[in-house]
């Protein structure tokens, strides 16, 4: 199955909202990376992408289907601080399982996946394993779940990191849990959405490049909070704002309890 060509955003005429919060901007920006018709997956502990998926489905991507560890095309009743939980299979058209989701990805049927990590470097390697020496870590993190495999099997990869700080964007990650530099992975890496900016990767060098800065954030601020030199286009636009409709859906329908703030 070939992916649809990315269409110009359906909200270009819509009224943008000014009183959004940063988590809402991140959710809306991630939602826009989803193309209608995509089959999409998310990892564990992925509250922000789970909301972005619901938001995309409710707006510009009604034919998008999410496949997660619990089910296909879920309709959860509320948001949780866990994203591997049966409630995320509520209303699904089919129950899923951990191996089955990976098998669909390995067969090439998952077009887009959302991943995060504690560190990311200039070639897109991510670390979710351990800080410091791997054998004697200063912080033993959770581990990357399926990242090291899905990096090779999911069609397009969007990363989300709620804390854009230079220690989290080092020249080189302490441990490569998610491989960003591997030839098979490079062309899959699409965007990185943080609390400051949207970045991508130069397809020639594989190096991270700035795409847009969030409203009120300067290019210098982004570079200052990044531990390596970002590739800079000649002009850096501002990240598209959330629309009135996006924010309304998030606040009223998808996440009235405001779990998104804890998901950051």
């Amino acid at each position, binding site marked *: 199955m070939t992916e649809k060509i990315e269409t110009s955003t359906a909200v270009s005429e819509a009224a943008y909202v000014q009183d959004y919060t940063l988590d809402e901007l991140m959710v809306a920006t991630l939602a826009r990376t989803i193309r209608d018709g995509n089959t999409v997956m998310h990892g*564990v*502990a992925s*509250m922000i992408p789970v909301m972005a998926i619901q938001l995309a489905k409710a707006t510009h991507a009604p034919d998008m289907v999410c496949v997660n*560890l*619990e*089910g296909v095309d879920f309709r959860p009743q509320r948001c*949780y*601080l*866990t*994203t*591997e*939980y*049966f*409630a995320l*299979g509520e209303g699904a058209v089919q*129950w*899923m*399982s*951990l*191996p*089955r989701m*990976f098998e669909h990805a*390995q067969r090439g049927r998952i077009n887009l996946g959302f991943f995060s990590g504690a560190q990311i470097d200039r070639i897109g390697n991510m670390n979710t*394993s*351990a800080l410091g020496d*791997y054998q*004697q*870590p*200063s*912080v*033993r*993190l*959770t*581990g*990357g*779940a*399926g*990242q*090291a*495999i*899905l*990096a*090779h*099997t999911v069609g397009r990869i969007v990363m989300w990191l709620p804390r854009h700080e230079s220690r989290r964007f080092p020249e080189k990650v302490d*441990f*490569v*849990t*998610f*491989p960003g*530099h*591997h030839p*098979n*992975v490079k062309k899959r890496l699409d965007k990185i959405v943080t609390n400051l900016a949207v970045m991508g990767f130069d397809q020639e060098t594989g190096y991270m490049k700035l795409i847009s800065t969030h409203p009120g954030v300067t290019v210098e601020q982004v570079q200052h909070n990044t531990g390596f030199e970002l590739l800079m286009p000649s002009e850096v636009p501002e990240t598209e704002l959330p629309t009135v409709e996006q924010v309304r859906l998030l606040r009223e329908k998808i996440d009235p309890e405001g779990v998104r703030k*804890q*998901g950051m």
Partner: protein
Amino acid sequence: MNKVLPNLDEAAALVKDGDTITISGAFFEQAPMALIRAIIRRGVKNLKVVVAAHGIAVDILVGANSVRTVTGAYVGFEGYGLAPNFRRAVEEGRLDFQESACFAIASAIRAGALGLPFMPLKGLFGSDLEQVRTEYRTFEWDDEEVLLVPAIKPDVCLVHAHRADAEGNVQTRGSSWDDTLAEAAERIIVTVEEIVSAEEIRRTPEFTKIPGFVTTAVVEAPRGAHPTGCPFEYDFDEAHIKRYLEMGKTADEFQNYLDEYVYGPKTHDDYLLKMGLAVPA
């Protein structure tokens, strides 16, 4: 053949020091917590725990010093935080964590369930996990590179499920790969919310996950997943999870947790009474 055991202690006695074990469920659902508490009470040691992604089920066993190695791809509490006993044990060099990726572990267990010596899969290349997991082999088929992961055949698989009949036909609702976990293992111990008649199982064969000829033992343990949830039956106990994480912050304080919630209640009924979860008689 009747597979029913009268209580969790007899079921826990099927787990031996040094066994390799797998565990059903995930972070906040369908973990066989009542059975795990019974295993801890028995003082089982040196377990080799194999999980794809888990939370409290692994962390509590580590905190109770029942574990020698953990093979896994994610041990944590998602939005609630890191796994306190697990991270402490790894950071202090007391626990051997054999880190991998979910699907590699699931594939190793799948190989065990299929009676095969290995399974092929795509991925892991370029990750440092490839360097750490030296038992995985790369293999070329025509021009395609795949990874071969050696089979894992656990001694014991611990499962919590919705219901079973006396012959050990086990049913679940929702997502699970308990069938694979169970089939890979030598001994399959299942706790269920409810033991039902064989006729009831035969009315709904679509829900049967583990057939009786695979199951070793079944014990009825209502609310046996607590503090995790049971899909479409009851939610996880968020307040208790938060208390667990709070008391897990130091090794000393975690000992108090164990005293209060694991060693204190001598039986599952005692635990349910203590937690205000006892089913009305």
